């Protein structure tokens, strides 16, 4: 449904825009109907930038984003309006998602004026109450209040309800759980699961591995704007290959295992993969000789090589260097 191909985002920084900052490098991924895909990465890895580009809030520098076969990177105002009927987003900070000087109702009213001008007041009210019910909110407690009178969890669920008012097919959920406490968190997660069951595709942006593990069918691990590993959730979490993914997974506390067990397992895996790079090994195995590879590497520099190889069916991994401008640990 949503396909991202070789997406780039470059910011001009420095005096007179002399230097470039690659926020997103050659990212490719796809989201199907009824599927949750997690974008996992640390702060500054470009995950929110990708989400904003999908929502057409930021312009992309290169690459394509297609939704149902249609390129959505360059949309006019009308086409964008139609696009937003099917694709909606929920943002990280619920407190800044509402205009602080208006009651929360106005967010819905804006949506109504824009997309449902002919719906009668009573019918709209019914629709609204239904959407609020879906996120287990009591309309009487919420409507007519100012944002500062509500909690972060309530506001966050209001935003999801807002997205549900439109008949959407894709939801970009940018860190929507981070602001919630444990009891509300599970409600929202279950809500996402239910929406998924109804055929909604969800691009779930998060820095939290356990959340990514819990909700998603597939995960995409980002580091400094580059996809380092991608695949089915179980495959990536059971057999992390890229050094960054391994570090990430090793730093998560487990309920059922002690720290020593985790460390032991990780050191075993690092020993097995030390000094190697599955990406370049796979490339070499595909018939490209080492000599060719070396010449390609010297011509364009390692920074340009940001592709992925399929290590196991559906499990892709990139070159084992961490930052894009480092050397490949295998020296290739």
């Amino acid at each position, binding site marked *: 449904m949503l396909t991202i191909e070789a997406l780039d985002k470059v910011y001009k920084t420095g005096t007179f825009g002399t230097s470039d900052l690659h926020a997103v490098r050659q990212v490719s991924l796809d989201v199907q109907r009824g599927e949750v895909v997690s974008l996992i990465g640390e702060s500054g890895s470009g995950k929110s930038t990708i989400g904003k580009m999908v929502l057409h809030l930021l312009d992309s520098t290169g690459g394509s984003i297609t939704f149902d076969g249609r390129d959505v990177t360059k949309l006019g105002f009308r086409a964008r309006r139609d696009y937003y009927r099917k694709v909606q987003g929920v943002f990280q900070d619920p407190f800044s998602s509402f*205009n602080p000087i208006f009651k929360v109702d106005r967010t819905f009213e804006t949506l109504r004026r824009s997309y449902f001008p002919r719906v009668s007041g009573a019918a709209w009210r019914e629709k609204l109450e239904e959407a609020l019910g879906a996120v287990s909110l009591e309309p009487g407690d919420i409507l007519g209040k100012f944002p500062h009178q509500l909690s972060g*969890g309530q506001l966050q669920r209001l935003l999801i309800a807002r997205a549900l008012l439109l008949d959407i097919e894709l939801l970009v959920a940018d860190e929507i759980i981070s602001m919630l406490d444990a009891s509300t968190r599970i409600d929202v997660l279950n809500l996402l699961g239910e929406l998924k069951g109804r055929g909604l595709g969800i691009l779930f942006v998060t820095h939290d591995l356990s959340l990514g593990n819990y909700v998603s069918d597939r995960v995409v691990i980002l580091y400094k704007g580059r996809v380092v590993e991608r695949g089915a959730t179980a495959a990536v979490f059971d057999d992390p290959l890229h050094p960054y993914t391994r570090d990430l997974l090793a730093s998560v506390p487990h309920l059922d295992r002690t720290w020593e067990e985790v460390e032991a397992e990780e050191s075993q895996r690092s020993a097995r993969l030390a000094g190697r790079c599955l990406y370049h090994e796979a490339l070499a195995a595909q018939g490209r000789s080492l000599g060719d590879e070396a010449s390609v590497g010297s011509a364009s520099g390692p920074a340009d090589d940001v592709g992925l190889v399929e290590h196991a069916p559906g499990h892709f991994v990139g070159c084992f260097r961490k930052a894009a401008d480092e050397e490949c640990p295998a020296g290739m």
Partner: protein
Amino acid sequence: MSQGLGLDKLDQRGAATEATEPPGATPAPSGSRKPGGDVRETLYFALRNPKVVIGSVVVLAFLLLGLLGPLFLKFAPMDYAGPPMAPPSADFPFGTTTFGQDVFAQFVAGLRSTFLVGLLGGGVAAVIGMAIGFVAGYRGGLIDELLNMLTNVVLVIPGFVVLIIINAYLGVRSVPMQALYIGVFSWPWVARAVRAQTLSLRSRDFIDLARLSGVGVGTILRREVAPNMYSYLFMTFVLLFGGSILTAASLDFIGLGPTNAMSLGLMMNQAVQWSALHLGLWWWFIPPGLGITLIVGSLYIMNVGLDEVFNPKLREM
């Protein structure tokens, strides 16, 4: 963030226990959720805010005096009506000038042109400045650069000198034209300030959310950005209003003011010219000075009150 944590559990069950609605605010706001309820609610809070009420009463009183006063006056502002240099009395409530002109008649006529200069000059400057500031701040990029350049060019033009040249060369002698010229040269700082505010508001998530609602740029500026700055925009207008009055008074002083009209600035400058200060004719310069001060001061007080009305977090409840 932290304030939400405690509330959350409360809200999930037994939400009836939560009483966030301030007790004094219950009658009007909670009941009215019809279209237009927001306007009524704003009015509700405005009329209960002493600063807004006092400020608007003073301004409206002066406005009414200026509008209706001349109908009840016996003398025109320039008539030689009575004895020269007479202190306030029953016949001449504000006394007379060195030439025996009625100060009260001058004051009332001056109020009219002062309001006109303030409203028109301030209005023109506010409209230009806000339009440029909003568009530059929201659109960014090349449009921002161009508009910023225009703003900076007008900003470094010595406005007062240009006004002197325009007034002298074109021989402007009517109050509205004077106000218009003042307005055209006093908007740049408004544009810069509004642009800066818009820039900071643009990055907030609710603007993105409005864009996700398929709303156009004009609507976003009007319905999401501007309301957050209402009190600031009003303050801007107050400053422009006062500034226009003072600029007009300065022009009047150097003989480039309206020749056929009276203004509060002109009164003060005539008073200084004919040494009212040394002759002890306090009734000649105190009323116009106090008038300007009261009008501009009341507008400021009103502005502080309106800040509380527009921003629900500042309401003293």
